[in-house]
């Protein structure tokens, strides 16, 4: 069997100053040539995992291997195996696109005579050739992310870390970036991608690891995760939040199914949608509450997230 691209073995990390347990015994593997989506809300520990795996941060305990190389003892070899593109678009806004790429290429210790060609090729690939001599200050958000991604590819790494690559981008730019990522995956690059967007994980990832408060709470393919939930979801909608809260109390006191409240609607997970819906309707009918909507649906990845973390993903 081929060595996995990433092997993470019970990593833990505590930030002593902030007294936050950022990672608590996290383990997972990423097969070579696949895409892992690391999913979790803000502050879940996604970036901490990326920073540890890119040798920037040292874990308190646990170990990790990149292509079989040991993170703690072979950091310098590992650094030539991956590219990192960050959520903060870590490029220099005072330099031009070309200057940025040349700088990163030099600091990656590429052979001098190959640098110019490689940079032109990347600028071409990411549709930035016309903007190559403009300082990044003049770039749009999407252009910056593309340059950031290009910068992480100067040495054509077999492994790519993308830390929230599309956070804050408009839908059009997001689509463009997704296409670029999909193309890289097709060419054989292994990708670890962190995201708050379920849609993104669903679209790009072969395997999804969900973390919350530094803990791994789920690990599987998108469809496996969806199957964990049961077969359907009943959604009740009300006029206002007050009514929703009262209804939630009534529902949870009577029904043992997992249920969550989300603004003016309540979602109830169940094996048998119609039967649960009937039961719920009787309950609501016997109260003074006014139901404004009822829906029975297949669970989305959004619902998986909601049920796993008890959190609204968009909060």
């Amino acid at each position, binding site marked *: 069997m081929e060595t996995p691209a990433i092997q993470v073995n019970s990593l833990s990390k505590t930030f002593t100053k902030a007294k936050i347990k950022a990672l608590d015994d996290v383990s997972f593997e990423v097969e070579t040539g696949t895409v892992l989506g690391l999913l979790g809300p803000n502050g879940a520990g996604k970036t901490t995992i990326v920073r540890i795996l890119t040798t920037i941060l040292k874990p308190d305990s646990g170990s990790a291997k990149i292509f079989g190389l040991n993170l703690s003892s072979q950091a310098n070899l590992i650094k*030539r195996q991956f590219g990192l593109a960050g959520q*903060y678009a870590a490029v220099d806004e005072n*330099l031009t696109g070309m200057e940025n790429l040349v700088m990163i290429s030099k600091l990656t210790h590429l052979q001098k005579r190959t640098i110019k060609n490689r940079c032109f090729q990347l600028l071409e690939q990411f549709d930035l050739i016309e903007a190559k001599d403009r300082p990044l200050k003049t770039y749009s958000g999407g252009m910056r992310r593309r340059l950031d991604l290009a910068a992480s590819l100067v040495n054509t790494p077999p492994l790519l870390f993308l830390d929230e690559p599309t956070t804050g981008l408009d839908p059009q730019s997001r689509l463009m970036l997704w296409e670029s990522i999909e193309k890289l995956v097709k060419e054989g690059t292994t990708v670890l991608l962190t995201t708050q967007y379920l849609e993104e994980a669903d679209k790009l990832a072969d395997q999804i690891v969900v973390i919350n408060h530094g803990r791994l709470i789920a690990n599987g393919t998108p469809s496996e995760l969806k199957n964990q939930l049961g077969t359907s979801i009943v959604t009740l909608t009300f006029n206002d939040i007050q009514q929703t809260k009262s209804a939630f109390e009534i529902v949870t006191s009577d029904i043992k199914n997992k249920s969550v409240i989300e603004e003016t609607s309540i979602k109830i997970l169940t094996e048998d949608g119609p039967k649960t819906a009937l039961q719920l309707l009787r309950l609501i009918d016997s109260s003074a509450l006014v139901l404004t909507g009822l829906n029975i649906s297949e669970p989305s990845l959004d619902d998986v997230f909601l049920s796993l973390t008890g959190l609204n993903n968009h909060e």
Partner: protein
Amino acid sequence: MKSEQLHIKSESRSNNIKYLRSAYWLISDILTITKRSLITYTRIPQALFFSTLQPVMFVLLFRYVFGGAIPIKNIQYVNYLIPGIFVQTVLFGSVSTGIGLAEDLQKGIIERFRALPMSKIAVLAGRTVADLVRNIFVIIILTGVAFAVGFRVETSVIFFISGLLLLLVFAFAISWGFTIVGLSAPNSETAQVMSFPLIFPLTFASSAFVPVASMPSWLRGFATYQPVSVLIDASRKLMVNFPSTASNWTVDETLIWSVGALIVLLPLAVFKFNRSG
């Protein structure tokens, strides 16, 4: 026996090549980061313009506003003043090392540098070298201004240039201290206000603008022997042949201070940088 010797020899040779290669990449990394910082200065010409204007205004202020009221025996005030202004300028310039570093840390570009196979020291060294270059640029302009307001070298061109080199070396060493400030500050604004209480007493409780003999006795001891005064006295000696009241060895003392500061501050800065991951 012979083959064993040969083996050892070739091993030490391959080690040598390894050291040479890492030395090559270290220098290459430092130059790349230096170039990046210098490009940044040219892209924000306003910052460079006003940071050069400030010492020029200090020259004019002390030459024409305060200078008349500060009589000093055996020397014209303008000749007394200019070495002091030079030192003040390069020290204030070294503060910008910390500010620039704090700004980079905030923006996340250093995060990317940390994940690259480049040398870590280069991230800091590139910054300090770039600020040395910037200090050289500012000093050249200031030299022109100094001559325009009546400053005259009383030694020789060689001595005058040695004086400039001396204060540039000192400022370079001190800028490593400000990289520590930059690494400790949460943002560039804080780095700036943190630097002020460090640099202010050293620059003003010194022989830069007035003779230390005019200060109260509790301050005089500090003002005479603190390293910035030693540097100013050394520069005066080299540029306008004005003897120090404290020591005949100010140039040597300045070099010792500079090397000492570098030996202490550079490893501290690198240690701090490695820990602040």
